[in-house]
């Protein structure tokens, strides 16, 4: 398994310390990487939810991402 160095979490509003810790614990358990460097960023365009980037892998679980997926789905379905 490739070692993970940095994990960046982006949210629409600033997360509380408890929320950050919950996320950090969850990801450390999932990724089995207790030594990874966690960074929390705030971008209002995210609207809600989280964007999680692990080194060069991005998982967009934000509401903005959902809207983009919805938009792409419509355009693809309607051949626009």
């Amino acid at each position, binding site marked *: 398994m490739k070692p993970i160095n940095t994990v960046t979490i982006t949210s629409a509003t600033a997360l509380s310390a408890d929320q950050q810790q919950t996320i950090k614990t969850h990801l450390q358990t*999932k990724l089995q990487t207790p030594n990874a460097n966690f960074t929390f960023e705030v971008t209002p365009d995210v*609207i809600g939810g*989280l964007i999680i980037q692990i080194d060069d892998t991005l998982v967009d*679980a934000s509401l903005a991402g959902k809207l983009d997926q919805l*938009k792409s789905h419509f*355009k693809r379905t309607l051949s626009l």
Partner: protein
Amino acid sequence: MENLGISSFKFIWQIINFLVLFLVLAKFLLPRVLKMLEERKSKIEEGLAVAEQAKKELASIEEIKAQEIGKARQESLELIKQAKADAETVRKQIVTKAEGEAHAIATKAQEDIKNKEKNALRNITKDAIDLSIIAAENILKEKVGSVDQNALIQRSLQEFDKAYETH
């Protein structure tokens, strides 16, 4: 004769003179006159023959002329007929070509209209989607503050788990 005042001597003498003159004339002048008359007759006959020949030739020429005129008339009629047929062929070609071009123009116009309708519909749909997404985005921005942030975070983490497992 004496009773009529005519002298018998003179009368006989004049008859002799007449006979002598007749004989002289018959001997020297008559052959020339006859020859001249014969030549004249020959010339007249020759002239008549020439005239007859000329008449025949004229008739022949008239006949040839009539034939040539008839032939020329026939050729003219055939030429006119051919010209009419050619003109009709050209007319049909022009009409066919014009109809083809008109059909092509109409078809192209219909295709253009369809394409424009399609593009307009596509643009309208695209705009509608963009506007719907913007509207949804604005609504979400307004409502997201009242939503439980922890629930959103949990949901995001679940999605991450699912996505990361399939990665």
